[in-house]
């Protein structure tokens, strides 16, 4: 099966989806189609390829050959231009009920090309509770040819009423071997680099690829991993936190600056800037200022999210570091994510107790929760670095 080949280390899920695609073809031919259903929830840890799996499934449903991977339809799905596939990727901090209602409307149409109308909702966990409730009816009884594909890290991230209406496809963390193999064969990454990236990314294929291919990403990781050793005093903790938050803000700026400019210029043009004719050529027409303001709000929300995501990547690298420390302390025979820093990890393992390591991991997790709860990033990260320096300070 062509389209499912790209899924790394997900043989079981691919088999289930392949079967469902055949059943779907059976439905179209007028059969019973046992094994196909109208709502799917793809879950799995970050980087396990939730949206890739959903996209492959969409391609398989839309392709006359159930996902050959090289026909027009498969190609259109691949680049996201298929008329029957609505692809939603929430960019802001959350996805609102209003946006969801629009989505429900889009999902209610009949398929243009006669097979299926598919709504692929990436990061469906970003939908607010109200938004998820707005989805309920549409997911429970969609038009006969509509299929909903939702993606979320775990079934628990969706409200129970959504969960119970979907068939869950669980993706697992791909093994280091599988990730390294993919990097080496598909991206022509040298073997040792592929292994390094696969280990460091702990199963996240996308991150492994960025680590293997982008020098800057590797440098950033080094910077983050040098934090634990640098926390000798309170002043250093504050400085490390400041650096971390500042770098993530720069990330967000870099990622959004050009994007924002293009969007704003586009919107101004839509509202009549630079156009000529009767009543035009005097700046924005009525409603322009409001629309611009709305766009600014969206852009701000997106920047905050990029900033949070960027800090989160750093925090996950730190968690992996302390996981290695714990593995050494407990004598677990697992491979280290930070093989390149083995000596440092071993020194820290000898100097501290497993309890301390767990407390440190806990501190990082608390910091992640706080960031998600809108706590000032600097305050949250400072509390974390201070706890990493001395894990026994009461909280």
């Amino acid at each position, binding site marked *: 099966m062509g389209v499912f080949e790209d899924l790394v280390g997900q043989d079981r899920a691919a088999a289930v989806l392949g079967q469902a695609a055949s059943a779907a073809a059976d439905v179209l031919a007028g059969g019973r189609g046992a094994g196909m259903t109208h709502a799917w929830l793809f879950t799995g840890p970050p980087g396990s390829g939730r949206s890739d799996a959903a996209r492959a499934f969409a391609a398989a449903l839309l392709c006359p050959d159930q996902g050959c991977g090289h026909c027009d339809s498969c190609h259109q799905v691949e680049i996201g231009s298929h008329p029957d596939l609505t692809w939603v990727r929430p960019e802001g901090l959350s996805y609102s009920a209003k946006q969801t209602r629009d989505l429900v409307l889009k999902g209610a149409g009949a398929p243009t090309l006669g097979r299926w109308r598919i709504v692929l909702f990436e990061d469906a966990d970003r939908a607010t509770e109200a938004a998820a409730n707005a989805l309920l009816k549409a997911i429970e009884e969609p038009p006969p040819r509509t299929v909903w594909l939702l993606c979320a890290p775990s079934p628990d991230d969706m409200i129970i009423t959504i969960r119970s209406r979907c068939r869950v496809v669980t993706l697992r963390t791909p093994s280091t071997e599988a990730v390294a193999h993919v990097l080496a064969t598909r991206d022509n990454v040298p073997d040792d680099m592929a292994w390094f990236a696969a280990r460091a990314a702990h199963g996240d294929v996308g991150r492994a690829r960025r680590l293997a291919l982008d020098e800057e990403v590797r440098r950033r990781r080094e910077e983050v991993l040098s934090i634990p050793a640098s926390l000798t*005093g*309170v*002043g*250093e*903790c*504050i*400085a490390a936190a400041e650096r971390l938050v500042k770098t993530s803000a720069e990330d967000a700026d870099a990622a959004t600056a050009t994007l924002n400019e293009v969007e704003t210029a586009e919107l101004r043009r839509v509202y009549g800037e630079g156009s000529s004719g009767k009543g035009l050529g005097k700046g924005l027409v009525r409603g322009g*200022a409001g629309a611009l303001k709305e766009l600014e709000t969206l852009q701000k929300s997106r920047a905050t999210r990029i900033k949070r995501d960027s800090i989160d990547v750093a925090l996950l690298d730190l968690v992996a570091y302390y996981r290695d420390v714990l593995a050494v302390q407990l004598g677990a025979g697992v491979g280290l994510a930070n093989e390149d820093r083995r000596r440092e990890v071993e020194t820290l393992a000898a100097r501290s107790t497993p309890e301390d390591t767990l407390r440190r991991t806990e501190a990082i997790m608390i910091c992640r929760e*706080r960031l998600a*709860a*809108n*706590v*000032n990033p*600097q*305050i*949250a990260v*400072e*509390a974390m670095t*201070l*706890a990493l*320096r*001395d894990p026994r*300070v*009461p*909280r």
Partner: protein
Amino acid sequence: MLPGMATAAPVTLVVGDEELLADRAVSSVVAAVRADDPGAEVHDLVGGKVEPGELTGLSSPSLFGERSVIVIRSAQDLAKDVIAEVVKYAAHPAEDAVLVLAHPGGVKGKALVEGVKKAGADVVTVSKLTKPAERLDFIKGEIKRAGRSISPGAAQALLDAVGSDLRELAAACGQLAFDTEGKIDEAAVARYHRGRAEVSGFTIADLAIEGRLGEALEQLRWALATGVAPVLIVSALAGGLRSLAKVGGAPRNLRGGQLASHVGMPPWKIDRVKRQLGGWGQDGISRAMQAVAVADEQVKGAGTDPAYALERAVQIIVASRTGR
């Protein structure tokens, strides 16, 4: 032009968001007309309720030749066609009518401001006072209007005690001028006004860091009661502790300018932080900052009572101080 009209322009535009000053500007125009013709009729209108044609009706010459003043407040709410009418009128004002428009500034109803300005109206700008020095000047001006004078210390004490609302300040100044004699000094202010009207998060942070628990809690309550946002107080606490950590953790051999650039703070602030550092050790700072992080979380919705979260944070900060 009729006699007396020289004191009030036919069209006056008052732009700005400082209500008190705007009110004064409007009433001074009204007073000027009244001084000349006590029988002048005053029409006080609110922007959103002015109908098209109303202005034309009111400004048309009356049978008995009386003067009239038309005041339009909240002129940003005027309907689009009324704005056009006003702008047209401003270019050719009626002879025995005076028009006063009050606009708070901003984008809404901008066409009015620009149109009327272009038509040659008198423009009075009244913007909000933001700097303490401007407020002090305002107090001095108020007292001077009452024909008195005030010492700089007394003006500062009055500002501290009354707060930054100009209307309240003006009332306090008027009362002081009425109640006292001679030059107003600090003793006179202290006799009628006591304490502080506004507490900033920084005051609370300084008190907590210096270990003055009672005062810190008192000021905290006061700040919350006067409506300071809890988030601002948390960030002030965090900022204070952060400075402690930075200055305390800086290499011992750095002095003056080098130290200032190392920690990124102005020298005067470093001096103050150094004085505050007594009694603080690394573990104490660490514990205090954890408490602040918890407080921020609570204030942002994890807890039910921001006041409790802040009080607890202040208590832990003070308790962490004596620890090393």
